[in-house]
């Protein structure tokens, strides 16, 4: 009897079940209801009431780009000025790393000094590795960059590194300043939060065209787009880190008589530094994520190589360039993490020693740079890694793909058909059938049930806006595709995370797998996926799952690891089997973390939408992409905002339920 009661849902369970049943029925019979009542508005938002957002946004953008003026100068002059400010350091870094310094423009340019040699760059990075931690890290970082040289990716990699070296400091410092302002002025924080949400969730393609107009065509526009995308986590981490500084430290600062500025820069920011470095790390990762899109608007580098190789169906070439991005990401990630945890120098600098002794690494780097420059006059191999010594695995990958394709296609086809019939298509029919009016109502009810009246208003209004701009069908296709992908990603990712939390070896393997998947540009695997699964929703789903799985794994592992060991001890003492410990203690206690992981998975899935448009889905991502190809900035921004609204609804609902879960578990 008791067992039976366990299986029955509780009161709130009945509520959700009922809501789902009604939604399902309405979705299933919406067409019949429309026919029976002869009310077409049920399935289609009446066009007479459509918001004309598209045209007004287009007009506004045109005004902003062409006519907006502050009297003496136009808005565009301001953005062009900013572009010039970014361009100088960028050109310098690029000349230093790869192009060499030259005078003159275009093909009239005359070289006056060469760039750093490949050896000097590797030694510099190795030196930074040793400075930040130890010889092991130095070897790893040096090895990663040596890999780039050996596999013939050096030139493109340096172009990419140049944009990283410019985008990351701007993103990090900008994020830090905004974060500090938000920390000081709560009102500013409240205003900033929705802006950050939009920056992270509106697909880059949506605002690409206006950016090109405002910042000019070329690497700078790409850098600006990258910074917009990569900065928000830094702002968020900054506010969290500053709030996390213990009040004792602040009090000490006040007691010793710090001014407001001194308190911030000499006391609070330094003590928050380790957490701040986590933000910097995120900025680096997101910057590298943008490499492909940035290359479409003139950034060049590895992203361009990936795109070009895949256009030729040179899968091997694509994989090599893609892996080069991964390798670079790993090197920069480890380096920045080492800086984050670096403890201050143990031995004080001895002022009596000579300059070389005091700065051993700087001296070595300078020495190597100068000597390779001199040696390069004798043998060019010291300046540029010799072409003949590069290795290519290109044909291996292509042959491998052919083998898989010829021998296993039928198996893949069967798996895919099963997935389509039993999972994708039913879910698609469910979501696309929901009448828009009921959809708005449901979102309001869910918001009210989980977060009270203010959340209800937010979700209701945002959903209504999506319907009112006439994107309901496309939005539902988006929700379906993301929903399925998030489901699959969680089913695979959460067990992986649990495994990683309980086993060190598994943790290491899963960790590097996840790192690779997140930094490998999805284009690289999208083309092989299309070869095996054809164009369609299934291929899109695979791409989204591969990319969005990471947070599901990470948060699951984190949630399980952070459970109070006393609770587990208590469970073991009362005679739980390991299985019971997992199901009755660990998983329920990890629910808040799992929900946060789910939240992040949804965000990443939505950010992959534009990529899935490239394999022919018919969702909001496609809408954004079409707008880009037609240079219709209004259409792009409207569709981009619709994506952002979905993301914001999901984010608010899930964070509210995570808070509730934490309260119910007594963690707050």
């Amino acid at each position, binding site marked *: 009897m008791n067992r039976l009661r366990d299986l029955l849902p509780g009161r709130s369970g009945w509520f959700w079940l009922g809501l789902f049943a009604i939604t399902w029925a309405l979705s299933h019979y919406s067409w019949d209801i429309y026919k029976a009542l002869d009310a077409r508005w049920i399935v289609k938002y009446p066009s007479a009431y459509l918001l004309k957002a598209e045209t007004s946004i287009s007009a506004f953008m045109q005004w902003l780009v062409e006519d907006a003026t502050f009297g003496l100068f136009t808005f565009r002059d301001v953005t062009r000025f900013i572009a010039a400010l970014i361009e100088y350091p960028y050109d310098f870094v690029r000349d230093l790393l790869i192009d060499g310094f030259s005078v003159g423009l275009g093909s009239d340019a005359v070289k006056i000094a060469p760039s750093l040699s490949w050896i000097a760059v590797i030694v510099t990075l190795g030196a930074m590795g040793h400075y930040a931690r130890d010889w092991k890290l130095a070897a790893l970082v040096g090895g990663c960059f040596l890999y780039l040289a050996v596999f013939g990716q050096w030139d493109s990699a340096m172009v990419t590194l140049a944009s990283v070296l410019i985008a990351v400091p701007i993103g990090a410092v900008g994020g830090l300043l905004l974060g500090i302002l938000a920390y000081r002025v709560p009102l500013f924080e409240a205003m900033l939060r929705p802006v950050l949400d939009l920056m992270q969730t509106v697909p880059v393609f949506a605002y690409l065209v206006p950016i090109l107009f405002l910042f000019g*065509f070329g690497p700078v526009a790409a850098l600006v787009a990258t910074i917009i995308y990569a900065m928000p986590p830094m702002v968020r981490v900054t506010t969290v880190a500053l709030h996390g500084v213990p009040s004792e430290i602040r009090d000490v600062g006040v007691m010793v008589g710090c001014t407001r500025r001194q308190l911030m820069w000499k006391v609070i920011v330094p003590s928050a530094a380790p957490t701040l470095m986590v933000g910097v790390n995120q900025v680096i990762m997101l910057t590298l994520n943008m490499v492909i899109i940035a290359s479409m608007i003139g950034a060049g580098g590895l992203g361009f190589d990936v795109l070009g190789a895949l256009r030729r169906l040179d899968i091997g070439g694509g994989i090599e360039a893609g892996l080069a991005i991964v390798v670079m990401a790993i090197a920069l990630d480890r380096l920045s993490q080492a800086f984050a945890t670096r403890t201050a120098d143990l031995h004080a600098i001895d002022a009596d020693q000579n300059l070389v002794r005091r700065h051993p690494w700087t001296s070595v780097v300078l020495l190597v740079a100068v000597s390779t420059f001199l040696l390069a006059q004798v043998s060019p191999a010291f300046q540029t890694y010799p072409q003949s010594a590069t290795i290519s695995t290109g044909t291996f990958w292509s042959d491998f793909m052919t083998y898989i394709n010829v021998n296993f*296609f039928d198996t893949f086809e069967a798996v895919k058909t099963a997935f389509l019939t039993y999972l994708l298509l039913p879910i698609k029919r469910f979501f696309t059938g929901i009448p828009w009016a009921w959809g708005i109502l449901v979102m309001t009810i869910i918001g009210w049930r989980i977060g009270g009246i203010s959340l209800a208003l937010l979700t209701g209004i945002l959903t209504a806006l999506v319907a009112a701009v006439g994107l309901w069908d496309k939005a539902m296709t988006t929700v379906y595709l993301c929903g399925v992908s998030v489901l699959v990603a969680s089913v695979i990712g959460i067990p992986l995370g649990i495994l990683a939390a309980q086993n060190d070896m598994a943790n290491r393997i899963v960790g590097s797998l996840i790192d690779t998947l997140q930094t490998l540009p999805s284009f690289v695997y999208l083309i092989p996926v299309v070869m095996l699964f054809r164009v369609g929703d299934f291929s899109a789903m695979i791409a989204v799952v591969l990319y969005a799985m990471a947070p599901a794994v990470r948060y699951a592992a984190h949630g399980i690891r952070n459970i109070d060991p006393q609770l587990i001890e208590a469970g073991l003492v009362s005679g739980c089997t390991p299985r019971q410990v997992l199901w009755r203690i660990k998983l329920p206690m990890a629910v808040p973390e799992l929900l946060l992981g789910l939240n992040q998975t949804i965000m990443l899935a939505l950010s992959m939408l534009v990529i899935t448009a490239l394999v022919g889905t018919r969702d909001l991502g496609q809408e954004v992409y079409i707008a880009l*190809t037609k*240079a219709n900035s209004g259409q792009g921004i409207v569709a981009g905002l619709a994506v952002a609204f979905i993301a914001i609804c999901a984010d608010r609902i899930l964070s509210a339920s995570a808070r509730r879960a934490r309260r119910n578990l007594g963690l707050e």
Partner: protein
Amino acid sequence: MRFNVLAATALVGATMAGAAFAEVESQEPIKLTLHDWSGQLLTTTIMGKVLSEAGYNVEYVQADYIAQFAGLKSGDLHVAMEIWETTGREAMDEAVATGNVVNMGETGMTAIEEWWYPAYMEETCPGLPDWKALNDCAREFSTPETAPMGRYLGGPVTWGGFDEERVEALEMDFEVVHAGTDAALFAELESAYQRKAPIVLWIYAPHWAPAKYEGSFVEFPPYTAECYDDPAWGSNPDMAYDCGKPTGPIWKVAWSGVAEKWPGAAKAVEAFDINNEDMGAMVADVDLNGKSVDEVADAWLAGNKDVWSAWIAD
């Protein structure tokens, strides 16, 4: 971005020719856009090299095919060598309408776009390339998602092409599935070709695919303007689009300021003319035989000196 090798070669070209044609209007670099397919890289490189020969300062900039119009309109970019009637028309018209971009005429190449099938399908489907024969064996082309209809893989939605309408008007038993990008399109072809599996899809030329894979274009009732405009035309009296696709020129466009700043260069760009055969052979050389764009462009320049010197002769 600057292509180092290209720039270096262009530099050599410029210094050599500099003596002969020292008097160009402006030494500011003319920015030519590079996209991500070899044919376009070739046309642009050839144009760039010819302009260098005339003494102009040339710079190559990587840009997205459609996004580049933003740069052309503002004068950040100057010349784009390949705008396809079939895929770029709308963006081009929009840009030309602003008055900041001008159409520099045809490149001499014609874009061919049509349904295409690999040669091995002729065994299972005798009667090809006739479209009626294709329709008779539509079932051979079906997949689990489209069964019992055949599956036709169309280009990205943005390419247009009226394939849904064509299928409808010709009463064909096919379902149109859109690839999102052209890379996805050719990935499917490569996959099917390796397995000798049935496929019919949208192919265009000049491109490396017709050179690499054996096959032919399906023959529809030939395109006429009336077919698209007038439902009464053709086999279906009630619907338009009951015919094949039009072939269209590939255009060159430029920022409107080019003609003022570099009148000679503008003339050379307008005069640029090359045909499908030459281009097809060069694209195959690059994509299939692994030669570099620069090498192939140089070979063309060496073999056609009288052609291109006419473009820059005053």
